């Protein structure tokens, strides 16, 4: 597959990347979301990338206030929200200024011309109007007076002009829907449902939407009309899902599969809060959500619930994980099931809270005092968050251990079509609570030993309320077996070893080598870089090069075949949204000269960037 040139824009293309950008108040996330849904229903494959400012409402019209939503639609399966957008919808000068750099040369810019007036230009830092003059000579510029056309469309509805203005994003949506032949029904139905009871709003939005669509048809935009055919995807039913929603649903599914109540102890933090919000709405699934006073209490309450026999979960982002470290260490010592979700964001400290980054891997592995190993997983795509939430829960329950699941801000908020699984095909998670004595003491009495281990080296999950099994656990070192507090040296050495061993022994699937396994170069990734790496490798292989791709979902323990796989390549490249963390692990574990490719800019990798890097690595072709 090669880069699609949009010069000139032809009637049928295999894919298109559109970015909607405007002021935070302009409703760009909603517009992008609707366009995405319509495209999904139309049958395209797609991927999205929403971005918004850290402020709730940054000052209107400023660069800081720009909110954007990128969507990539195609007639074949795609892996990322795309590199440079083919089309930029700029609702104001600030949107144009902040996004222009990313637009593909020769791409199209659709600007809301009404907003390119003095005040807004000044706020965006433009000395003159870029729509006039040669600034945008490299692009195809379409100026549409969206605000006034929207007002015009609404003028007979009894809507106040100021209110009418608010519907201008639906004008843009209508226009784009015409350009890309999106179905109109879903959006109209959605407007009616969403604003039910607010008739004027419904009327205005529908009027604006139709007006936008009509504008495309009537104005001289004919040569902008493009068709992206539905993609040939595996057959089945699809929905468009974001990572946070998928993760929440994965937890619902884990509750369903285990038969346990899910107890979520959480404290709001961007970009993880939506998992809390989603689960709070799902009480009928026997889900309890508890908003704690802080992250320490959040994980503490989840641990308490786990002790009580529930599926204890806590969701947060980096700063929250830092705060939870001591309690997670307790969970390691207690050997109780617990799922900790870290939706990573830009750091250190408060950093870039609304941007993505994946720099918490080493913290996940090593961020606790003492030797306190735990399994670490990472999801690769929005939909994969569903699977990994189940996998994390399964490991936690089966092995009685806290498990850390890593996602990131990009996965959390972006979306992709998800081939819905058949619920009956999901594998149940067996739960066995201890129910009776498991040992005979010196005097021949039956007793219960809370640290007597099974073949997986897991101890019994003996929940309060069970007759006869009364026992005490705690963070002090305990004698293996009996669980009594023990300060004995040999026992401590033994227990430290057992805790390491039982995690190391957790079975994880071997890694697969994709791309071309016969070359010298392998690109190894984890987490959300999967799409960009897979895309880049696909492109490079398409160009005739031999490059392999290995993706790690399990970061601890590592797959058994990983060392062998790595040693089959001369060069190992590890792209990460950090300064090189997995690469440290690989070097340390396998003594291979893996080299980091870092991007720490709050943005995910694009396939194009990685393509260039891989090509450079292969010897400089195509640079």
């Amino acid at each position, binding site marked *: 597959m090669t880069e699609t040139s949009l010069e000139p824009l032809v009637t049928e293309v295999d894919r298109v990347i559109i970015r909607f950008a405007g002021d935070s108040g302009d409703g760009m996330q909603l517009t992008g979301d609707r366009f995405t*849904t319509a495209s*999904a*229903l139309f049958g395209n494959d797609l991927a999205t990338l929403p971005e918004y400012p850290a402020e709730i409402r940054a000052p209107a019209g400023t660069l800081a206030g720009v909110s954007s939503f990128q969507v990539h639609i195609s007639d074949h399966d795609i892996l990322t929200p795309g590199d440079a957008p083919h089309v930029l919808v700029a609702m104001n000068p600030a949107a144009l200024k902040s996004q222009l750099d990313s637009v593909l040369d020769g791409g199209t810019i659709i600007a809301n011309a009404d907003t390119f007036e003095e005040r807004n230009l000044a706020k965006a830092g433009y000395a003159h109007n870029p729509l006039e003059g040669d600034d945008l000579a490299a692009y195809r510029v379409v100026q549409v007076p969206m605000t006034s056309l929207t007002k015009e469309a609404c003028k007979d509805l009894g809507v106040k002009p100021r209110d009418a203005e608010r519907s201008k994003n639906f004008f843009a949506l209508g226009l784009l829907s015409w350009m890309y032949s999106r179905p109109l029904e879903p959006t109209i139905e959605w407007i009616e449902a969403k604003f039910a009871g607010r008739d004027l709003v419904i009327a205005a939005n529908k009027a604006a939407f139709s007006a936008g669509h009509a504008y495309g048809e009537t104005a001289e935009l004919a040569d902008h009309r493009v068709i992206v055919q*539905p993609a040939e995807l595996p*057959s*089945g*039913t*699809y*929905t*468009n*899902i974001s990572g946070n929603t998928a993760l929440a649903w994965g937890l*619902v*599914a884990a509750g*369903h599969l285990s038969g346990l*109540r899910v*107890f979520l*102890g959480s404290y709001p933090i961007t970009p993880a809060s939506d998992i809390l919000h989603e689960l709070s709405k*799902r*009480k*009928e*699934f*026997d*889900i*309890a959500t*508890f908003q*704690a*006073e*802080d992250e*320490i*209490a959040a994980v*503490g*309450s989840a*641990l*308490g619930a*786990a*002790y*009580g*026999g*529930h599926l*204890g979960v806590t969701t947060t982002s980096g700063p929250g994980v830092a705060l939870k470290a*001591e*309690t997670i*260490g*307790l969970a390691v010592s*207690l050997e109780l099931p617990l799922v900790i979700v870290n939706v990573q964001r830009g750091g250190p400290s408060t950093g870039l809270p609304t941007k993505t980054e994946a720099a918490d891997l080493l913290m996940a592995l090593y961020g606790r005092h003492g030797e306190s190993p735990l399994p670490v997983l990472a999801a690769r795509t929005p939909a994969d968050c569903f699977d990994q939430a189940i996998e994390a829960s399964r490991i936690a329950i089966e092995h009685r251990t806290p498990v850390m699941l890593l996602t990131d801000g990009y996965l959390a908020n972006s979306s992709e079509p998800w081939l*819905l699984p058949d*619920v009956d095909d999901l594998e149940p998670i067996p739960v066995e*609570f201890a129910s009776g004595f498991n040992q005979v003491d010196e005097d021949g009495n039956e007793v219960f030993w809370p640290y007597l281990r099974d073949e997986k080296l897991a101890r019994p999950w003996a*929940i*309060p*309320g*069970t*007759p006869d099994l*009364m*026992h*005490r*656990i*705690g*963070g002090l070192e305990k004698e293996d077996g009996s669980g*009594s507090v023990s300060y004995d040296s040999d026992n401590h050495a033994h227990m430290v070893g057992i805790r390491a061993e039982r995690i190391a022994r957790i079975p994880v699937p071997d890694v697969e080598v994709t791309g071309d396994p016969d070359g010298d170069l392998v690109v190894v990734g984890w987490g959300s870089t999967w799409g960009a790496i897979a895309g880049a490798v696909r492109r490079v292989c398409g160009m005739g090069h031999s490059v392999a791709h290995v993706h790690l979902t399990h970061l601890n323990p590592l797959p058994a075949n990983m060392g062998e796989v790595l040693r089959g390549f001369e060069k190992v490249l590890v792209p990460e949204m950090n300064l090189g963390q997995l690469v440290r692990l690989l070097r340390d574990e396998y003594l291979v000269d893996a080299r980091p490719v870092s991007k720490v800019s709050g943005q995910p990798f694009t396939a194009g960037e990685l393509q260039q890097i891989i090509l450079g690595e292969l010897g400089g072709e195509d640079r």
Partner: protein
Amino acid sequence: MTDTLLTDGASDEVPPTTRADWQSDQEVRWCPGCGDYSILTALQLLMPELGARREKTVFVSGIGCAARFPYYMNTYGMHSIHGRAPAIATGLALARPDLDVWVVGGDGDMLSIGGNHLIHALRRNIDINILLFNNQIYGLTKGQFSPTSEKGKITKSSPVGSCATPFNPVSVALGAEASFVARTHDMDRHHMQEMFRRSYEHPGTSMVEVYQNCNVFNDGAFETITKKAVRDDMLIPLRHGEPIRFGSEGQFGVARHDGGVELVEVADVGVEGLLVHDETRPDPSTAFALSRLAESPDRPTPIGVFRAVDRGEYAGAMNAQVDEARAARGKGDLHALLHSLPTWTV
């Protein structure tokens, strides 16, 4: 489903138990003479009387001498980490309203590092029983001042005296919307048991402050009020519905004064002039005033239940939301959930 596995305490008869049933096989490891022993004994003796079930009882603690408590009770127990017991107990009690969840901790554990969890637990009013062993010192770390140590206290970390005003735990609790607050001391088993029983019976979070002697690092901290010889004149028992009166001859009492309360001689004001204690006043102001009566626990100090009001327990409300959701929308259907956003079929 947890329900299937567990006996439902409500339906069966509770088999009678003895003190020995409540004693674990662990050797008790407090210093000889420590006040913690008498608290442990009081509770172990009380449990059979309460008709509690061992397997339905959980003790959760943080870290400290006091926090060793769970090891000695033949119940379920968790000796967690410093300060976090109320948070962990919160999760447990929310998850398992069928259990009796007790929290035990010292003044450092509960009011220093754990202060926030304590006040939030009190505000939420989840059904847990919090026993705060106040010895006005950090015992386990060998003698530093605590948030209840008196100003000027000389300890290892304050060799020329601490500069901080102490908390009054009862005031803190009342300021945090506590629905039940009581105080007792380690020298009076009977009174302790009365308070523990009330705490056990209270629906919602209850906090009992127990004045506890640390004979190694803060010996005699409460001696001026709890010693047998002075007790009658120095401890002011609060009894619901009764005028607040004390003294070996009942010669002293407590009366309202300028928005607070003050000590009076009954001879001066008459029994009618005494404040009649009412634990159940919806307004915590009088309870608060009583908590201020003794500026520090070396003057006549009220013990007993300061406040006991029923204001809706949290776990019940939370679990009711789950039940209501299921009643309204039926048991969740995973297939339907996955298909709840727009879908399309290829």
